């Protein structure tokens, strides 16, 4: 019998992924389809982003995916002039946090938006981003 292949899709997340195997691997499948998804507990309706495979509120592991849509309010951001190993070529880049009301999304600001145009409180949307090396991520863009 052939050895079962490990589902290590998560190694494709971001410029460098430090995780290969997670039960939330379908997140990567959805990124391939152009969708950024979170999870919702089928039992109690709790909403999770980043997505979780397990609900600590009701201790069930039965979740469904929902798409991050519309815009979120920019809560804060920072442009890095120094980065960890492997990110140097991308500098400077800007990390940020968006508030979608029921959940928040942590990620990176698209380089389409000049740093000077960023303001706490502005609305941004989340979009899938395919990196030059084929890795999959998401960025925040103007609505």
């Amino acid at each position, binding site marked *: 019998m052939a050895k079962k292949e490990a589902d290590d899709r998560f190694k494709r997340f971001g410029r460098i992924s*430090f995780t290969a195997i997670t039960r939330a691997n379908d997140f990567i499948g959805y990124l391939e389809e152009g969708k950024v998804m979170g999870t919702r507990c089928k039992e109690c309706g709790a909403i999770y982003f*980043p997505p979780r495979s397990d609900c600590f509120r009701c201790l069930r592991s039965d979740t469904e995916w929902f798409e991050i849509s519309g815009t979120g309010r920019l809560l804060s951001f920072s442009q890095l002039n*120094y980065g*960890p190993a492997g*990110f140097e070529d991308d500098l400077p880049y800007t990390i940020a946090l968006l508030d979608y009301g029921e959940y*928040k999304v942590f990620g990176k600001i698209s380089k389409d938006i000049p740093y000077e145009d960023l*303001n706490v409180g502005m609305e941004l949307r989340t979009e899938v981003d395919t990196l030059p090396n084929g890795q999959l991520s998401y960025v925040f863009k103007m609505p």
Partner: protein
Amino acid sequence: MGRVGIIGVGQSNFVRGYPGSIRELAFEGFKEAMEDARIQIKDVDASIIASAPEYDKQRSPAGVIAEYLGLIPQPTFCVESICSSSSTALRMAYSMIKSGLHDIIAIIGFQKMSEISSSESQERMGRGADIQWESPFGTMMPAYYAMYARAHMARYGTTQEDLARIRVKAATYGQMNQKAVYRRPVTLDMFTDPESTMSVTVAKPLRVGDCCANADGSSCIIVANEENAKAMCDKPVWILGLGAASEAVNMAGRDLLTGLSVGIEAGKQAYEMAGVTPRDIDVAEVHDCFTIAELMAYEDLGFAKPGEGRDLITSKETYREGSIPVNIDGGLLSKGHPIGATGGSQIRTIVLQLRREGGEMQVKNPEIGLVHNIGGVGLYGNVTILGR
């Protein structure tokens, strides 16, 4: 059950590139604390080692260090809450003594940041928070604190200059602290002088001057039950209150971006246990890994109202002669930040202050002191209140 007292404190010099092994480094803080406590090795009936293991080559350092210090066959173990490890160890020691399980415990915090190469260190820095969902974006510790700084500025009008003033204060006392890694003066002008390293942007809006330096170092705190503390020590310092809390590792899981929830929660617990209010604190050590962290601590601990932390520093109320002296030993900004040793160093400073042994850094007649020690980006928080 009686009180728990601190009967000995010690720390090594905090340095760049300690020329020795981790066990030799640990010995330096331990020796000073043992000489301070004037007790014998056999009096110590357990040890707790505080270290962030990602910097250690030695697997499970507790046993190795306990053996080197002559603390076998007494029980030993390692505790870790990153930068807050030695305060967590103090919490463990307190409960082990209060339970009657042990009488005298040595808490040995250490970190030899230079144990790993700078490229290994750079790689680990990328894994400082949520490795699954945040590190793939290229996050770094300064950038997370920079996000707090940006949020604080947007909401309250705090400025880069307010933050720079905190570094200027730290350097004022860092120059007096012979154990500090950074002992040069820092002026506000340096933050706007392109020729000065202090002005170099790390993660907007934080500059080099807003960030503490890595350092190698060790610290040691020896705690005892009331009976032993009174019998063995002329000037025991008592643990009056302890608070501890945790927070979501991912920024997306957090509601507050203008303060650290763990500092607020741990502070509340410690004040309640000690039966004191922020106004009763005569001297404080707060976790200033970045200038914004000290400013938020003013507010999180109730020394200032939310948004008014900047007034405390601009009016110099947190200087040695002010109404609430903070980090009068130079703080992490000047002393350096050897992760596992940091909390022990903060505790040592407050103990020396309460014993009126602060030397040039001594504030006037303090009775009650506070230690605020944060792990990660507000992931863990410990607040300890000490009294004479």
